């Protein structure tokens, strides 16, 4: 997605008549659940013209990135070793 230049920004509509539908479609696209046709139509035709949806798109992408960078973690090694040990014990019985 190209960065927003002032010129582009001014050309875009400042209000979206189908906010709810667009937001639902946007989620399908970002979740990899939209058809190629839906995706093409939305990103080529709508996103380039509609300021609220354009902003929303970038916001949704940023939230997903933030979630992935801040909300994942690793299991403690001690716990992993413990689980492996118990499974082997389990097998022995």
């Amino acid at each position, binding site marked *: 997605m190209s960065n927003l230049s002032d010129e582009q920004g001014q050309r875009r509509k400042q209000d979206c008549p189908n*906010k709810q539908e667009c937001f639902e479609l946007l989620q399908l696209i970002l979740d990899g659940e939209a058809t190629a046709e839906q995706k093409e139509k939305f990103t080529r035709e709508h996103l380039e013209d509609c300021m609220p949806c354009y902003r929303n798109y970038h916001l949704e992408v940023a939230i997903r990135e*933030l979630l992935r960078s801040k909300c994942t973690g690793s299991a403690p090694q001690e*716990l992993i070793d413990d689980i492996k040990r118990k499974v082997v014990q389990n097998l022995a019985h």
Partner: protein
Amino acid sequence: MEEVIRQQYSEKEKLNIFNKEFMPHINSMYNFAYRLTLDADDSKDLLQDTYLKAFRFIDSFQQGTNAKAWLFRILKNSFINDYRKKSKEPSKIDYQEVETFYNSEDVDRQITPDLRVEALQDMIGDEISVALNSLDVDFRTVIILCDLEGFKYEEMAKILDIPIGTVRSRLHRARNLLKEKLSEYAKKMGYKNA
């Protein structure tokens, strides 16, 4: 749930499946356990219970199928059966209320809380993690499964035993709630219109 075809794996095969197909998901599973229980000790117990259960029932796992989804489903069920009761979670969400909300005019207000990307980029601490943890467990769960773990809607429907339409509406609502929380933080950080 589809019919379970039981396998009869040898001990060597069992260990092989466990190590090659189950263990690679342990970090994701630990994170899921932690985000569900929101307690360090409970999450360790839940993870261990789940892995031991998975090993015990390994004959109902078919090689070549999605091990990660299979494990997540066991963990989710263990959480509901063994941990949810004792946790301090509020009572289950009334989904009728959610559906009503979802179909109401009020939803427009929720769709785009005026949160800006710049405000998000300044959230370098644990704001997002705290915001995620503050959501009701059912909303938290769909965000974890979809946005953190990349499960498809169909896989989520199987893991959670709910229809795909419910996966979608729950995700939609969860994301709006998360954005509301983030908006509150942004305001506190001084973004006036966030």
